[in-house]
């Protein structure tokens, strides 16, 4: 069965430190990859996505993620975090084969806590 694994349920980090949130997925079929962010008591917002092309994708607020096909990973990174980055981050994957695509499958989320 297809699955998405976020290895860390919680990541505490100090302000201005770098951070990496890890995401791995199963299966060797083609994928579309997403990172969503959920701020406290809010809905999910798309942070960035990989559909095709360059394997390094960036968001407008300084996050980036790199698609690594051989390692089936899509880790999220930011070189310097802010207090306002405190949120739950979800990795999500659409597995697709030929002309058909599956559902968006979410990882269990990583809670990023940025401390002053």
């Amino acid at each position, binding site marked *: 069965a297809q699955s998405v694994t976020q290895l860390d349920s919680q990541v505490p980090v100090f302000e201005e430190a770098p951070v990496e949130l890890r995401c791995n997925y199963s299966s060797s079929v083609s994928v*579309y990859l997403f990172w*969503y962010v959920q701020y406290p008591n809010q809905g*999910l917002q798309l942070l960035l996505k990989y*559909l095709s092309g360059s394997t390094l994708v960036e968001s407008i607020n300084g996050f980036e993620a790199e698609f690594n096909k051989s390692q089936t990973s899509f880790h999220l990174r930011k070189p310097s975090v802010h207090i306002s980055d405190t949120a739950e981050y979800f990795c999500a994957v659409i597995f697709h084969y030929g002309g058909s695509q599956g*559902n*968006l499958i979410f990882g*269990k*989320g990583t*809670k990023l806590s940025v401390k002053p």
Partner: protein
Amino acid sequence: DTAVSQTPKYLVTQMGNDKSIKCEQNLGHDTMYWYKQDSKKFLKIMFSYNNKELIINETVPNRFSPKSPDKAHLNLHINSLELGDSAVYFCASSQAVTGLSYEQYFGPGTRLTVT
């Protein structure tokens, strides 16, 4: 100009009741979804629906029934509510599956508490 809206934001009800959650999107998307987020924040799809087809997730009890009066609305009706139904329910929408982008836009969520 909210893209995906849900009502109500909070819903507290007793076991055995029937309730509905409404969802509307003004993005012109053809596909809409319902997700359930449990107490551990795990998100799982319940249904996806487009103009042509309702796709029912087999793990969803038949007490849950989506209803779509038109392609901009997808409501979720729940019969005989149980304690385990307590969760946050998210509506989402996206372009049709043959579109170029598979990005899903999420509503703010409805926190359902069954007592």
